[in-house]
C-alpha cells in the first residue's frame, strides 16, 4: 500500500510522575492514508493530544511501532526527528503559539529558516503563498498581539503549511475561537484538504468533527470507534442543532 502515510502498531504511552503511572495511550493501532481528513474526538483527558504529539514526533511512545511515509520513525535520533517535524509535518495548536517577538511574516517564515535547501527567494515566495492561502498577506507586518484570535490562528495555519508538509496536525484549532472565527478556520482546513493535504485534527466540538471524512473516537487511551462519513457536513450539522 504505497498510499499509506501513517501506520502505527500497538502504540503505548505511559507517563510516570510521582509514583503515579498514567496510561495515556494503551495499545493503539491505526493507519492513515495520504489525503485523509481524520478527526479525533473524545472526552477531556482521554489521550487525544498525546496521540497527536506522538504522531507529530513531539513525544516518543513508550512502546509500539510508528511508520511515517514508509520509514520507521519510532527510534530516530533527535536531529532526524527535528528534520521530519520541520519538513513533513505542520502543527496547529489550540492556543496559536505564535512567537510574540516576531511579526506575522517572520512567524510564518520561522520553520523555513530551519532548513537549508531553500533559497531566500524561495522562502519569500513560500511565505507569501502561505499567507495568501489564509488571506493574511495584508497583516504581514503586524505583531501577534495586534491581531484578533481568529487572525492569529489563521497565521498559525499559514505557518503550519508554509513548508508544504505532507501531514497537518491540529490540536483543537478552534478551541479558543468564537463560532464565526471557528467557522473560518474550519473552511480553511477544508480548502487545504481539497488541495490534497492530509489532516489529523483533534476536536471535541462535534460540529468541527463532522467536517472530517473519517472520525475516530478515543476513550481512556483506546480507539473505540473509527468510521467514515460519506457526506460529512450535512448529517452532523443536523445533529448539532437537534441537540
Amino acid at each position, binding site marked *: 500500500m504505497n498510499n499509506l502515510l501513517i501506520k502505527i502498531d500497538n502504540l503505548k504511552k505511559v507517563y510516570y510522575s510521582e509514583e503515579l503511572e498514567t496510561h495515556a495511550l494503551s495499545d493503539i493501532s491505526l493507519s492513515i492514508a495520504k489525503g485523509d481528513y481524520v478527526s479525533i474526538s473524545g472526552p477531556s483527558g482521554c489521550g487525544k493530544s498525546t496521540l497527536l504529539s506522538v504522531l507529530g514526533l*513531539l513525544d516518543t511512545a513508550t512502546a509500539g511501532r510508528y511508520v511515517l511515509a514508509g520509514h520507521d520513525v519510532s527510534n530516530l535520533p533527535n536531529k532526524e526527528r527535528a528534520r521530519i*517535524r*520541520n519538513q513533513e509535518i505542520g502543527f496547529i495548536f489550540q492556543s496559536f503559539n505564535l512567537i510574540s517577538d516576531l511579526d506575522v511574516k517572520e512567524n510564518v517564515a520561522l520553520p523555513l529558516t*530551519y532548513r537549508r535547501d531553500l533559497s531566500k527567494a524561495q522562502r519569500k515566495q513560500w511565505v507569501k503563498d502561505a499567507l495568501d492561502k489564509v488571506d493574511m498577506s495584508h497583516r504581514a507586518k503586524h505583531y501577534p498581539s495586534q491581531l484578533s484570535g481568529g487572525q*492569529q490562528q489563521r497565521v498559525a495555519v499559514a505557518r503550519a503549511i508554509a513548508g508544504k508538509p505532507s501531514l497537518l496536525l491540529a490540536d483543537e484549532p478552534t478551541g479558543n475561537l468564537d463560532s464565526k472565527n471557528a467557522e473560518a478556520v474550519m473552511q480553511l482546513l477544508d480548502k487545504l484538504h481539497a488541495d490534497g493535504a492530509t489532516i489529523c485534527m483533534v476536536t471535541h466540538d462535534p460540529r468541527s468533527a463532522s467536517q472530517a471524512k473519517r472520525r475516530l473516537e478515543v476513550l481512556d487511551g483506546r480507539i473505540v470507534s473509527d468510521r467514515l462519513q460519506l457526506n460529512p457536513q450535512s448529517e452532523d450539522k443536523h445533529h448539532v442543532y437537534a441537540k
Partner: protein
Amino acid sequence: MFMLSDCRYALRLLAKSPGFTALTTLVMAAGIGLSLYLFSFINTMVFKDLPFTDGDSLVQISQSRHGALEGNPLNYQDYQMLREAVQGLDEMGAYRNVTVNLSGRDGAVRYSGVRAEPNIFQLTRTQPLMGRTFNQAENLPGAEPVVVIGYDLWKSQFAGASDILERQVKIDGVSHRILGVMPQDYLFPNVAELWLPLNESPAAVSRQQAGRVYGLAHIKSGYSTTEVNQQLALLMERLAQRYPQTNSGLGAYCHSIPLSVAEDGIAVVYSMQVAAVLILFLASFNVGNLLLSRAIERGKETAIRMALGAPRARLISQLLWESILICTLGGIIGLLLLAWGLEVTERVTASFSYGRQVFWFKFGIDAFTLKVFLLFLVSTIFITGFLPAWKNSGGDFNQVLRDGTRGALSKKTGRLNRVLVISEIFLSLTILIVAGVIVVSRYLEERADYGVKTDNILIASVLLPSSRYSQAQQQVTLFNQLQSQLQQQSALGDVMISTALPGMPAPVTAIAIDGKEYLSDQQTSFPRANHILVMPGSLAKLGVELRQGRYFSAQDEGQDKATVIVTDSFVTAHFGDQSPLGKRIRVVDYDGQTPHWLTIVGVVRHVSQDKPSSADGRMPSVFRPYSQLPQAQMVLAMRLKSDVHSATLALRKTLQSLDPELPAYRIETYQAFLTRKTGPMRFLSGVFLLFGCATVLLTASGIYGLMSNTIRQRTQEIGVKRALGACEQRIARQLLLAGAAQLLWGGIPGLIVGCGLGYGMSQVMATPPQALFLIATLLILIIGAVVLTATWLPTRRALSMEPAVALRYE
C-alpha cells in the same frame, strides 16, 4: 499607600517560603554588611573628623615636591612665612615628631612624642587632666626644660602618682620639669605620649639650620580647603623664586590629619568605596531579581487581582512591603555582622604599628555608619522593590490574561532580565578587578625581595642622647664597643649596624657625580639616592651581594676617609655601561660647602628601603662607613644563635654594662618588622578576598537565577520552535549566543572601569600593568564561564523535555 493589610499579606508570602526568605535575607545581609563595613572602615581611617571640638576644621600643613603630596615636614622658616601671609588659616602652630629616651623606674624607655609650639593643646580644645601646658616663655630657646606627659606614661612610669606635677624626669639625659598630664587617649597629633616645647626661634638661625616642622591650624570659616591650598601653593611658589636652590619644586598643602597619614593611598581608598557601592548594587539586584521572578510566577494571580479591581497602588505596596521586610531584616543582620567585623578590625589594625596605634583608629558603629546604613537601606528597598513593581504593575494586565502568544516572557521582562544580567556582569567584573589588584599586590609584596637575607635576625634601635654623646668619636667608640661585645654573647652571631636596614626609610639626599654638568645649583636638579651609613662588614653579613670592587674594610675607617659603595641601580642610572669604580660622587649639601668628594670602591646589588615595588623602594642607595660620618641613631641587626628572648636579654645586659641610661627599643625580629610593613596590605587583601568570593557567589547565583528564569519562561517558545523543526543544537546555540552577547555588553564596560580603577591603584601598589592585564583576562574568563554555565544548565534542562511537555509547560 502602605496598608497594614498589605504588610500582613507580604509577611504571609515570606513565611510561606522560608527558604526563599532566608536566601534573600542573607544576600541582603551580606551586601549591606560588606559595603557598610568598607564605608565605616574607610571613614574611621581617613575621613572622620577628629574627636575634638572644631575637629572638622583642624588641618596639618605638609610639604609637597613637584606636586606629589609627600607628607614631609616643612622648613621652619618657610612655615613662618606661610604663617604671616596665608589668609584662610587660624591658630597656626608647628610641631615635629620625636622619639626620646625617658629614664623611668625600670631604666630608660623609648617614647614617641612631639616638640611643639604651645598652642598645640588649644588647637584641640583640650585641657590637661592635671597641671597646665607649657607657655610662650617656656618655648623660647634656652628656656628651662619642661614636659607635658600623657595619661598612660603617667600611669606606667609614675604609677599614676598624684604629686607628679613639678617632679623632674630625665629625658634624653636632661632633667625636665613635669608641667601637666593630658587626659586618657589624648595622643594628638597621632601617637604622642609626651609633649615638649620646640624651643626654637627660626628667625635666629640661617635657612639651612632651621628645623623642619609640620604646621597645624584651623581653617577659617568661610574658606575651603581648596582655597587654602591654592594660597599655600602660590606662597610656596614665591619662596621657590626667592630661594631656587633649596625650594624649587617644593610646595605646601593642608589636609586633615588622617588624610595626611593616608597620603597617596587615597587612590586605593576611592577604589574601595566604588567597590563597596557596587557590591551593594549587586546584592540589591540579586534580591530584586529573586523578588521579580516570584512576582512573575504570581503574574497571573496579579493580573486576576487587578481584573477583580485591586488598585495598582495596592499591588505595588505589597511588593514594596516584601522588599522592606527583607531588606530591613537583612540590614539588621548585616549591621550585627558589621559590629563584629569592626571589632576584629580594631584588633587587627592594632598590630600594624609597633607601639601605639594612631588615636582615631576607633572602629565601631558610629553616627556616620548608622547614617550610611539608613541610606543603604532605603536604596536597597528602592532597588529591590522597584524592579518587580515596575515589571508587574506597569504592564497591561488585560494582556497578561489573554496573552495567547508564545514567547511567554513578555518583551519588558525579557529586556529587564537582560539589563540585570548585563549589570551584574559589569558590577562583578569591576569589583573583582579591584579585588584582584589588591590580592595580587599583596602576593607580590609578600614575595618582595629587599636584597638581603632577612631570616633569623633580631633588630633593635639605639639612639645616643646628644647630651652625653656630642662628640663623633664618642659615638664611634660606643657603637664599636657595642658591636664587639654583642658578638661575644653566646646567644648572638654576627652583629650588623646601620642607619637604616633594607625596608627602613633612610634619608634621601641629592648626589652630584664628578664630571657631570648640572643645570643649576638647585637641590632639585641633582639625582637623589638613599644615604646610608654602615659599620664595615655589615653589608656582607646582611647578604647584600657584591657586584664589583670591594666591601668596606678597616682602610675606610675614619672621618678623614672618603669612600662610598653604590648600588647597581645607582650605576645603571648614572654610569650606564661604564665601570663606576674609582669615580667620584658627592653629597650635595644645602649650604654648598667645598665639595667633599667620595670615591666609589664597590658596587652592590640593589636593596630597597621601602616596599620594593614602590617608587621609594626603587630608589638607588649609596653606603658610607659609619666612622666617616658618625650618627646618633643606629639600627642593630643581630644574627640569632638562640631564641629571641635570650638574645634580647643579652642585648639589654650588654647595653646596661656600657651605659645604664641607654635603651634599645623596637626590638623585634627582622621578619616581624617586614611582615608588619605588609600588615595593612595583608588585612586589606583578606577583606577583598572575602569581597571577591562574595561577589563571585552573588554573581553566579544571580546570573544563574536570571538565566534560568529567562529560559524557563521561554520553555513554551522553545517547545514551539522544536515543534516547527528547530533542532536542539540550533536552540542551544541561540541561547548561548544571547548569553555571550550579554557577557560582552556587561564585560567590556566592566573591563574598562575595573581596569581604570585597577590602574589607579597599581600606581601605589605592587601590581605591574602586566599583572593587571592577566587579572583582567583571568576574571573575564571566570565571569564568562559563569555566564555560559548559567545559560547552559537551564538550556539543557529545557531541551531535555520532550517538545510535547515543553508545549504544555505553564
